[in-house]
C-alpha cells in the first residue's frame, strides 16, 4: 500500500502563516515590508483568521495586543525596521503581559537585499526583556510559531520570533500538523493592575517581569529546541537561525549547540557544552549578540575575531573562519553591464522625477519604488532614511536655511508611506508655519513589496472594498491651503504646478495620482503603443533621459545618425516620451494602435 504523506514546499514566511493557523491564531495585523510581507499574505488565505494590513507597524502591534487582551491568539509581523516603529507598545507589552498568546515576528535583512539598514533585531529581546525564538528553516518556522504561542500563554509574555531573509525567503519541506486551540477564554476582562500601566501598577509589573525572566532562564535549560549535536569534541560551535545550516553544511565534523531560543540563554547548558569541547566558536550573523552574553558568563569563545560582523554568512565564510580553507574559484567574474532594478515602462513615478531633475531641486526622499529615482539617468532623489522621513526632513532643512531655501527643496512620499508616517510630518509643517512643498505619489498601492492595498487605495487585504482615504481632504483638514491633484504622465502640467508651488511661502501638497502599471486592473486595460518614426527622429536623445526600459538607442555608424526605437512588447503606453519629443517623431502605432495587455 502506498503511504500518502502530504508535503508542502513552503517559504519560511508561508510556514509561519501555517504555524499560526495551526495554533488557532484569531487576529493578525501587519504592515508590508521585505522580507516579512508574505506572512500576512499567506495567512489571509486561511479561513477563520481575521487578517489586516495596518497603516503602520505600531498600529499593527497595538491591534494584536488588544486582541490578546481580549483573550484570543494574535500575531503581528514586520520587517526589522518596522519593529523600531512598533517598539513603543512592544516594550510596555512586556510589562502587561498577555491573555491570548501574542507572537511578534521580526524579519531581518542582514545583506540589505531590500532595506536601508541591517540592524540586528535580536537586540530587541534583551532591551524589551521578551523571549525570542529563532528558526533556521521552514519546518522550524512553522513549529517555532506554534511553540511561541504556547510559551506566550504559559509565561504571560509576548514572544518574539526572529527570521532573516534566508529563512523567510527560503523554501523547504513542511508537513501539515494538528490544529491546537488556546485554553484562554475570549471575552472582556478588566484587570487594571495588569493592563493599566500607571506608574503604581507598572512598578509592580516590573517586578513581575523580572520574576518571569528568571522562570524563562530556568526553562531555557530544558527547552527542547536548544539542541546538541555531538561529534568531534575538538571544535564546538554555538549558533542559531540560518547560521546553524551553514555550520552543518560546512563543518559536518564539529559539535554543535543549536539555540532555538536566543533570549534568555541557557547558561548551564552553554557552560556544560563549553567544558566538553577544546575550542569554542560562536557563529552568528551581524552583532556579537550570543557571543557577548556567553563571554559575560565567563566562558571563553571565539566569535567576531573570525566571523564577519556585517552581511550574510554562507558556508564558505564559516569554513574559512574556522578551519581556514577557502575554495579557489575556477572562473573569475567578467566585466559586463550591470542590471540594477529600474522603474517599469509606464511607471507613473517616472515623469514626476524627470520634472524634478529638470527643476534641479533638492529632493527629500522616502521609501518605495520611487527610491529608484535616485539612480541614473533620473538621479532625482537626495535623501532616503526611513518611512516618512521625507516630510519632516524637508521641513527641517527649510527651517535651518530660512527663506533662502524657498523653492529649492521638495519632499516626495508614496501613498502608503504617507499614511504610514508622513501625516504627522505634514502636521508639523502646518503647525510650525513651514512652507514645504510635499508631493504625494499616489499610485494606488504599496508597490515595492508586491502590491498590497492600503488605506488610501480603499481595498482590504482580502480584496474587499472599504472606505478610501480622501488624501486631498485629509491634507486640507490638517490645514494645508494649497492642495492639487495631477496626472504625473502629463509632464507639462505637473511641471507648471510644481514650479508654482515651490515659490509659495506656505505649505502645499501636490498629489500625483495614477495607478501602478503592474496592478491587475491596469494590466487588463487597453493601452496605446508608441513608436518612433525613424525619418523624423533627429537623434537628440531627449526621450532617453527619462530612463524608460522600452526606449532603445541604436548608435549611429559613419554618416548614419543614431536613433531611438520603442520596443512594442515593453511599451505600456504612458505617452511621456511623446510629450518630450520636439520633432513629433514619437506617435501611437497605427495598425490597430493598441494592444490588449494580457494578465
Amino acid at each position: 500500500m502506498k503511504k500518502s504523506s502530504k508535503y508542502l514546499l513552503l517559504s519560511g514566511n508561508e510556514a509561519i502563516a501555517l504555524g499560526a493557523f495551526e495554533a488557532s491564531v484569531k487576529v493578525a495585523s501587519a504592515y508590508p515590508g521585505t522580507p516579512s510581507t508574505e506572512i500576512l499574505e499567506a495567512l489571509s488565505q486561511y479561513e477563520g483568521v481575521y487578517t489586516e494590513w495596518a497603516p503602520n507597524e505600531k498600529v499593527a502591534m497595538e491591534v494584536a495586543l488588544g486582541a490578546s487582551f481580549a483573550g484570543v491568539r494574535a500575531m503581528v509581523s514586520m520587517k526589522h525596521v518596522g519593529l523600531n516603529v512598533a517598539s513603543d507598545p512592544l516594550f510596555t507589552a512586556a510589562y502587561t503581559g498577555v491573555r491570548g498568546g501574542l507572537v511578534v515576528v521580526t524579519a531581518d535583512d542582514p545583506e540589505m537585499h531590500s532595506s536601508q539598514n541591517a540592524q540586528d533585531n535580536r537586540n530587541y529581546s534583551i532591551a524589551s526583556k521578551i523571549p525570542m525564538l529563532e528558526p533556521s528553516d521552514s519546518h522550524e518556522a512553522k513549529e517555532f510559531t506554534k511553540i511561541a504561542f504556547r510559551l506566550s500563554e504559559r509565561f504571560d509574555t509576548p514572544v518574539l520570533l526572529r527570521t532573516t531573509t534566508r529563512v523567510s525567503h527560503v523554501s523547504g519541506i513542511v508537513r501539515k500538523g494538528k490544529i491546537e486551540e488556546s485554553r484562554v477564554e475570549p471575552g472582556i476582562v478588566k484587570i487594571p493592575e495588569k493592563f493599566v500601566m500607571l506608574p503604581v501598577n507598572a512598578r509592580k509589573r516590573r517586578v513581575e517581569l523580572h520574576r518571569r525572566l528568571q522562570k524563562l532562564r530556568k526553562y531555557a535549560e530544558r527547552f527542547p529546541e536548544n539542541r546538541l549535536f555531538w561529534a568531534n569534541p575538538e571544535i564546538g560551535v554555538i549558533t542559531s537561525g540560518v547560521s546553524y545550516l551553514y555550520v552543518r553544511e560546512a563543518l559536518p565534523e564539529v559539535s554543535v549547540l543549536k539555540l532555538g531560543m536566543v533570549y534568555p540563554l541557557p547558561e548551564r547548558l552553554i557552560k556544560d557544552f563549553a567544558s566538553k569541547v577544546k575550542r569554542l566558536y560562536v557563529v552568528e550573523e551581524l552583532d556579537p549578540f550570543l557571543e557577548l552574553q556567553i563571554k559575560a558568563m565567563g566562558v571563553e569563545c571565539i566569535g567576531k575575531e573570525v566571523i564577519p560582523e556585517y552581511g550574510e554568512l554562507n558556508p564558505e565564510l564559516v569554513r574559512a573562519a574556522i578551519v581556514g580553507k577557502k575554495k579557489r574559484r575556477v572562473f573569475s567574474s567578467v566585466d559586463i553591464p550591470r542590471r540594477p532594478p529600474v522603474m517599469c515602462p509606464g511607471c507613473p513615478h517616472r515623469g514626476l522625477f524627470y520634472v524634478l531633475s529638470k527643476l534641479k531641486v533638492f529632493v527629500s526622499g522616502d521609501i518605495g519604488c520611487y527610491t529608484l529615482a535616485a539612480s541614473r539617468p533620473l538621479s532625482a532623489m537626495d535623501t532616503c532614511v526611513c518611512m516618512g522621513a521625507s516630510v519632516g526632513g524637508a521641513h527641517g532643512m527649510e527651517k535651518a536655511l530660512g527663506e533662502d531655501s524657498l523653492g529649492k527643496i521638495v519632499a516626495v512620499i508614496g501613498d502608503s508611506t504617507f499614511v504610514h508616517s508622513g501625516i504627522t510630518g505634514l502636521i508639523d509643517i502646518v503647525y510650525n508655519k513651514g512652507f514645504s512643498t510635499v508631493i504625494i505619489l499616489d499610485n494606488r498601492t504599496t508597490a515595492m513589496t508586491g502590491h498590497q492595498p492600503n488605506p488610501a487605495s480603499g481595498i482590504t487585504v482580502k480584496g474587499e472594498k472599504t472606505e478610501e482615504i480622501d488624501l486631498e481632504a485629509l491634507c486640507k483638514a490638517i490645514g494645508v491651503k494649497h492642495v492639487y491633484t495631477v496626472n504625473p504622465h502629463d509632464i507639462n502640467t505637473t511641471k507648471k504646478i510644481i514650479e508654482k508651488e515651490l515659490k509659495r511661502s506656505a505649505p502645499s501638497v501636490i498629489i500625483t495620482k495614477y495607478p501602478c502599471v503592474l496592478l491587475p486592473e491596469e494590466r487588463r486595460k487597453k493601452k496605446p503603443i508608441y513608436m518612433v518614426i525613424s525619418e523624423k527622429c533627429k537623434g537628440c536623445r531627449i526621450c532617453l533621459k527619462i530612463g524608460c526600459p522600452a526606449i532603445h538607442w541604436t548608435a549611429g555608424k559613419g554618416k548614419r545618425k543614431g536613433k531611438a526605437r520603442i520596443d512594442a512588447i515593453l511599451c505600456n503606453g504612458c505617452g511621456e516620451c511623446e510629450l518630450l519629443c520636439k520633432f513629433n517623431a514619437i506617435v501611437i502605432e497605427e495598425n490597430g494602435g493598441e494592444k490588449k495587455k494580457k494578465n
Partner: protein
Amino acid sequence: MVVKRRKRTDSSDEKGNILFCGVGGQGILLASEVVGYALIQNGFDVKKSEVHGMAQRGGSVEAFLRFGKKVYSPLIEPTTVDIQVSFELLESLRYLPMLGKQSRIIVNTQKIPPLSVSTGIETYPDGIIERLKGFGLEVYPIDAFQISKEIGEVRTVNMVLVGALSNFLPVDEDAFLDVIKWRVPERFREVNLEAFKRGRGLIDNIK
C-alpha cells in the same frame, strides 16, 4: 498544493545544485517551484532560496535550488553549480564564480538589454555562447522565446527552460507534468504543458 512524496528506496547519493538566473518578471520563481515540487515527489529533500522586493523591478534575479538526501544550506557555494539555467543571454555570464568545470549551462538566447545598454551608455556583449564554450563548459543554447511565441504564449519561456532542465534531473517526466497541472492556473495549463514538452525534446537535438 500538496504532493505525495515517494520513498527513495535506493540509497543513491544523488544531489545537485541548480542556479536559476535571469531578469525580474521572467517567471523564474515559478520555474524553480515546479522543479522543487517535482524533486520532492521523487523523494528528495529540497531547499530553494530567492530574494524578493527591490530586486524584482527589472533587475538581475537569481534563485538557488538544492536537492539531495538531506540539504542543509539554502545557498549554493561558489564553484559548485551543477546546472545553471539562464533565462536571459547576458545573465549567463554574471555568475561565473559560482561555476566549476562540471557545470552545465542551459541558456535562453533571448536578449533583454539592461537600461545602460538600451540608453546607449554601454553595449551588449557579443559572442556570449562562444565565451562560455571557450571555458570548456557544456552549453545548451535555446531560443525559448521563439518557441514560446510558436506556442502562442510568450509567458511560457520559463516552462520551455524547465523542460530542457528536466533532462538532467533524476525525476521522471510524469512528476513534472503532474506538478505543472496543479500549479499552473487552468487557462494556462495546456500551453505550459506544451512548453515543457517542447523544452524537454530539445536537448537531444543539441547533443
